[in-house]
């Protein structure tokens, strides 16, 4: 899994590519933690390159979203497709996140 962070005006964009499994999910959480520690309150995860996510990955998304919400921030999900979308929908967790087709849309809603 690769994570490419980009600092935007009001948020940090994290482009996630590859497979988020039991082994790599903590890396996503750590990348988010770093952004939060540097002052970010809104994170946008761009997931069109995410091929796979398991329950450990779901837990990481939830942990980060809970943390941001407690600081009046948000974790938005963009470009969800394929198995990751299926997993978010099947567990109904998709309803707990702001979900957008594109990062532009997510940025416009901040």
């Amino acid at each position, binding site marked *: 899994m690769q994570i490419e962070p980009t600092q935007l005006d009001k948020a940090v964009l994290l482009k996630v590519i590859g497979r988020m*499994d039991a*082994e790599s999910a903590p890396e996503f959480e750590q990348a988010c933690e770093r952004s939060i520690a540097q002052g970010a309150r809104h994170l946008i995860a761009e997931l069109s390159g995410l091929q796979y996510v*398991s*329950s450990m990955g779901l837990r990481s998304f*939830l942990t980060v979203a809970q943390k941001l919400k407690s600081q009046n921030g948000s974790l938005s999900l963009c470009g969800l497709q394929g*198995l990751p979308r299926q997993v978010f929908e099947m*567990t*109904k967790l998709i309803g707990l996140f702001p979900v957008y087709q594109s990062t532009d849309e997510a940025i416009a809603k901040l």
Partner: protein
Amino acid sequence: MDPGFRRLSLPASLNSLQAFLEFAHTGADAAGLAAADRDQLDLVLEELLVNVARYAYQPGAGDVELAYAVEAGKLLVQIVDKGRIFNPLEKEEPDLRGNLENLPVGGLGIFLFRHLVDSPSYRREQDCNIVSFRFPRPDLLGT
């Protein structure tokens, strides 16, 4: 067990996961599964094997066996461990209707396993947990 099953037994640990998935891919290829179905299979196996690695033998260690057979474009899969009794089909489903603040932390992996496979079953036999299922689920084929 029926003949025709291929088996791989490795230490129950996160480090074994990749080897188990590669072993299962041989079966997925033989069954002619599409790429999307293979990812689903990886997910189900990860959830079950990580669960065994985390809980079955704690605080000790032990092995887990993955076995599969190909039958008419489907895989019959069996996961066997000698750890403490655990029936994933009896575990209560997590209540996912809450909001971010009060969501349950556990149970998501077992939930995904139960919803992504066909005919899951569990039995305890000779001190072994034996979880079996067919894959893919016909109604989820290629999704």
